[in-house]
């Protein structure tokens, strides 16, 4: 089945709003903003299908008009069912200048013999913020279905003014390359990648320390964090639970979205003189 989802977010009088949403089955879009005082737009992509079936083709397009800030959310884990031909997802995200887009979807669960090919292309302009993540599980681990999928490929490309600035090509073929191999999943069952890029002036050094702290608090994970080629970072993580990685990414997202990481204004140190007076 060919399914389409198209969202346009706009910005007017300091508020982000939904300009247009077009979707076909199984998609639906819900506005899930919680606070009247929050000027950003929060949308949830809902689906009446529990996941992708054989021959499914998803075409998703998201556009942010200048100045818009959109946080997209998923509703549930994305399942990839048993397939012969495979399923495809194409996602195109376009940000005009001064936009922020943040998307931390639920983990993907590739079932036995599933075959998936995804391609996400993102176009940034100046003054944009992008946070995007992906978590892939080994499958239905508790039903004894670990690493039985046929193949999973997801290619992410980010362009800034027509120049490729970040590319991530995930290819998992457990039958060809056993996940326990050195350099691959190395005994873990879940992998995640979170990318944050900022084409504005704001240096992200302060985020790096905070993100390092957030992820280092997780038990039983193995992760690396590194500065990207442009202002931003890439976080890669291996773990044993989808929920844990998802919650961890959500915390990172929350910390960056609220922009509350900038160092607080230094409290002026009290001079010693009054203290002495008090002591006397």
């Amino acid at each position, binding site marked *: 089945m060919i399914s389409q989802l198209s969202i346009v977010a706009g910005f007017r009088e300091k508020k982000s709003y939904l300009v247009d949403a077009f979707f076909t089955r199984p998609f639906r879009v819900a506005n899930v903003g919680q606070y009247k005082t929050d000027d950003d737009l929060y949308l949830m992509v809902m689906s009446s299908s529990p996941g992708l079936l054989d021959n499914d083709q998803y075409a998703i397009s998201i556009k942010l008009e200048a100045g818009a800030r959109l946080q997209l959310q998923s509703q549930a884990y994305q399942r990839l069912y048993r397939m012969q031909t495979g399923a495809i997802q194409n996602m195109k995200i376009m940000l005009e200048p001064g936009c922020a887009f943040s998307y931390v979807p639920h983990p993907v669960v590739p079932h036995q013999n599933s075959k998936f090919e995804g391609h996400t292309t993102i176009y940034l302009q100046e003054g944009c913020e992008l946070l995007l993540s992906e978590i892939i599980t080994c499958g239905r681990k508790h039903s004894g279905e670990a690493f039985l999928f046929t193949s999973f*490929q997801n*290619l992410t*490309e*980010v362009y800034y003014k027509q*120049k*490729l*600035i*970040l*590319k*991530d*090509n*995930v*290819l998992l073929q457990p039958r060809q*390359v056993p996940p326990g*191999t*050195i*350099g*691959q*999943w*190395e005994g873990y069952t879940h*992998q995640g*990648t979170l990318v944050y890029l900022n084409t504005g002036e704001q240096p992200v050094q302060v985020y790096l320390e905070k993100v390092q702290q957030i992820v280092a608090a997780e038990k039983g994970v*193995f*992760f*690396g*964090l*590194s*500065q*990207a*080629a442009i202002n931003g970072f*890439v976080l*890669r*993580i*291996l773990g044993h639970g989808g929920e844990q990685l998802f919650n961890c990414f959500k915390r990172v997202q929350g910390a960056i979205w609220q922009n509350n990481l900038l160092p607080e204004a230094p409290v002026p140190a009290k001079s010693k003189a009054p203290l002495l007076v008090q002591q006397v």
Partner: protein
Amino acid sequence: MKNHYLTSLLHLSDPTLPIGGFSHSNGLEAYVQQGTVYDAVSADSFIRSMLANNIKYNDAAFVRLAYEAASRQDVSELIQLDQECTALKSPKEIRQASMKLGVRLLKIFNRQTDHQLVEHFEKAILEKEAAGHYCITFGLYAFLLHVPVKEALLAFYYSAAVGMVTNCVKLIPLGQLDGQNILFRLHPLLEQLTEETFDLRRELVGVCNIGFDIHCMQHEHLYSRLYMS
């Protein structure tokens, strides 16, 4: 024998070229410190996986693509491939290592002969359009020095393997003969990978190896370090 490509190829792929290759472990130092790579057997697995799962899809694939772009005199393609390398290498130390090695390789070779293609590529590096990654420079010069593409690839793999064996011998440490035994046993794999790189589909170029990437990122934070990556 004059102008025979073999001398040029030996020079281009010499692991002891003063470009700084010896100061990079590409994540191996992190593996050794964490105790995952600790003897000849685990060193062998590390090197094989690095060659077959990482280098084949990344640097070696770019050597071939850069070689082909050079053969078409297509400088804008070379620059795009170089930008793709920067975009793909997410661990900072690995990205910087690749750029440093490439620029130094360029400095060694460009003073000997003038090539228009090299001039354009260097201009792009100066204008920060390109970074001059090692694999791109290697592919470019392999073509300009009349090296057949498969021979260039085999030499590239061999040079990478020698680098890793040397690092394993130093870091683990292993005996010199243990290292050479590993290298001998790698010969068939190097030939196989050369063929496979030649047939690699374009959409598979740049495949990420998450375990390697994480170790390379963690290397930035190791308490004591002998290597720069």
